[in-house]
């Protein structure tokens, strides 16, 4: 089983549109599970129109709640809370759910036993059918964290689904950025594809995401989107990739067809053939070759064992 994740360093580079196009190209082989790991702002469903077959709540961690009837107003919890989540409300205290990290310190220290600690309902996840095959996706409720854990759950789900249905490829729309969710997106993948653009922030973020891939020993290939907006910078990005041993996959033009497709809930390769769809098809072939190579990397350390 091969696993490919599309990442971007920064948002807005066209990562999801590219993932959608790759999902359509992958569907020709009919052996792919698509997975949206961009759980903070999942958009792939807008292109793939998934029909949920199995839905589940995502519960993660706990949240503190003070029972006003039990609170004696001593203020121990406010002093102990390092997140400033507990405020005085009249004679008693109350937890600001938006600031609470669920660390349980107030629960442990409250002399009156007034702090309850129910599980936190953070979002929904689903296994769905799409015109390109099965899809695993989720939606976090706004303001929730723990997206790293949800990403891991979705990956486990995608792997189980691929195994159960005998599918050989998992294609993931990864989380943007270089933080916790993208770190979880990268674990155990065979190839990361960065979609970048020839802007100062595009380059800056590509360098950071490349560092991250190196840190986790995941090989990286790079697709430059909107290359004609600054051909010089695009050429520099390609040169940078060559220097650092990341495979360049090609350069896409700035093409309004991406938005036209999106407005029709389609992916760009479903529109009439164009240079853009041709470049995407070639890039996808290249991706498959790169991902098919025997992995040379050392096995990944589980993230939670780092620093042990």
């Amino acid at each position, binding site marked *: 089983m091969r696993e490919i994740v599309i990442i971007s*360093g*920064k*948002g*807005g*580079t066209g990562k*999801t549109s590219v993932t959608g196009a790759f999902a359509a190209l992958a569907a020709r082989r009919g052996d792919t599970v698509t997975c949206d790991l961009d759980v*903070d*702002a999942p*958009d792939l469903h*807008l292109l793939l129109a998934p029909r949920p077959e199995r839905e589940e709540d995502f519960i993660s*961690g706990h949240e503190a709640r003070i029972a006003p009837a039990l609170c004696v107003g001593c203020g121990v919890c406010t002093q*102990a809370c*390092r*997140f400033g989540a507990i405020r005085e409300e009249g004679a008693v205290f109350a937890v600001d759910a*938006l*600031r609470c*990290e*669920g*660390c*349980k*310190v107030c629960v*442990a*220290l409250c002399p009156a036993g007034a702090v309850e600690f129910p599980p936190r309902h953070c979002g929904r996840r689903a296994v769905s059918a799409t015109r390109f095959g099965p899809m695993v996706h989720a939606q976090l409720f*706004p*303001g*929730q*964290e723990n*997206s*790293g854990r949800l990403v891991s759950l979705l990956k486990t789900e995608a792997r189980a689904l691929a195994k159960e249905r005998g599918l050989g490829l998992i294609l993931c729309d990864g989380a*943007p*950025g*270089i*933080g*916790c969710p993208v*770190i979880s997106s990268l674990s155990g993948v065979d190839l990361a594809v960065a979609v970048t653009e020839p*802007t*100062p*922030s595009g380059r*800056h*973020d590509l360098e*950071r995401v490349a*560092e*991250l891939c190196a*840190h986790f020993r995941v090989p990286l290939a790079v697709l430059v989107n*909107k290359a004609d*907006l*600054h051909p010089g*910078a695009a050429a520099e990005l390609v040169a940078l990739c060559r220097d650092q041993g990341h495979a360049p996959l090609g350069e896409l033009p*700035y093409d*309004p067809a991406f*938005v036209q497709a*999106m*407005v029709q*809930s389609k992916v760009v390769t479903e529109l009439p053939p164009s240079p853009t769809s041709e470049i995407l098809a070639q890039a996808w072939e290249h991706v498959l070759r790169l991902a098919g190579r025997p992995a040379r990397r050392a096995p990944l350390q589980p*993230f*939670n*064992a*780092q*620093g*042990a």
Partner: protein
Amino acid sequence: MIVTIASGKGGTGKTTISASLAAVWRAPLVAVDLDVEEPNLHLFLNPEQQGSEDAALEIPVVDTARCTRCGACAALCQFKAIALMGETLLTFPEMCHGCGGCMAVCPEGAVGTGQRVLGEVAWGRARGARFLMGRLRVGEAMSPPLMRRVKARLGAMLAQEPADAVVDAPPGVSCPAVSAVMDSDFVVLVTEPTPFGLHDLRLAVEAFAPLGAPMGVVVNRAGVGDLAVQEFCRARALPVLAEIPFDRAVAEGYARGKVVADLGPGQRAVFTALRDAIRSRCNRTEAAHA
């Protein structure tokens, strides 16, 4: 007055708009980059750095001589950052949220505090304004504590010399974005007129509305998609403060690291109008509070 520029999602032009607003603001200003995972504002404003400091989190260091392996600390920790494995007590600093619980509950006083550097806070001057940013260490997953550090310094800077602040928030609607928007006097939501833009805007409104600050919308790349975003704003009574038409020259200027407000008088006028729209709305809410 603290104006935060947020978006349901990255790549909508949040940083470009923050940079342009900072460029036309005129009143005393601190331009702040709270997108600590991928700070980009400095690439546009080119600040001259005047100082920086490491931001660290307090993590446990266990004195094995005093530890009786009772496991109270491990039982408390909700983040699996401290664990008792047989006779050995292990800590996993990367998982630690710095809540201080293990230190507070250890009956032997065996858990002391060490430090994990999350990243740095840096400050300086750019275009006659003060500049402040945080930068997360690569491989570090915990951005909110670093953001709290940046906000604390902002508070100190504003106390020392009153000014407005224009804050570039992290993208998205999860925990870091919400903590960035918290404590703002006004929130500018940047979106684009596409199905992705609408979907993400909807989530952003849902996420930030409970915080209570007034909000307004900037539609970037107006004209590329459809009009559903504008319809949504009308239905939800969200003011559209500016529409920035899609213009290839702007996209190319951005690619070259230019501040859009510097590209020409027409561009500048869009941002001075946006600045005035924000200011008049803030004054109105300040008057209403008085």
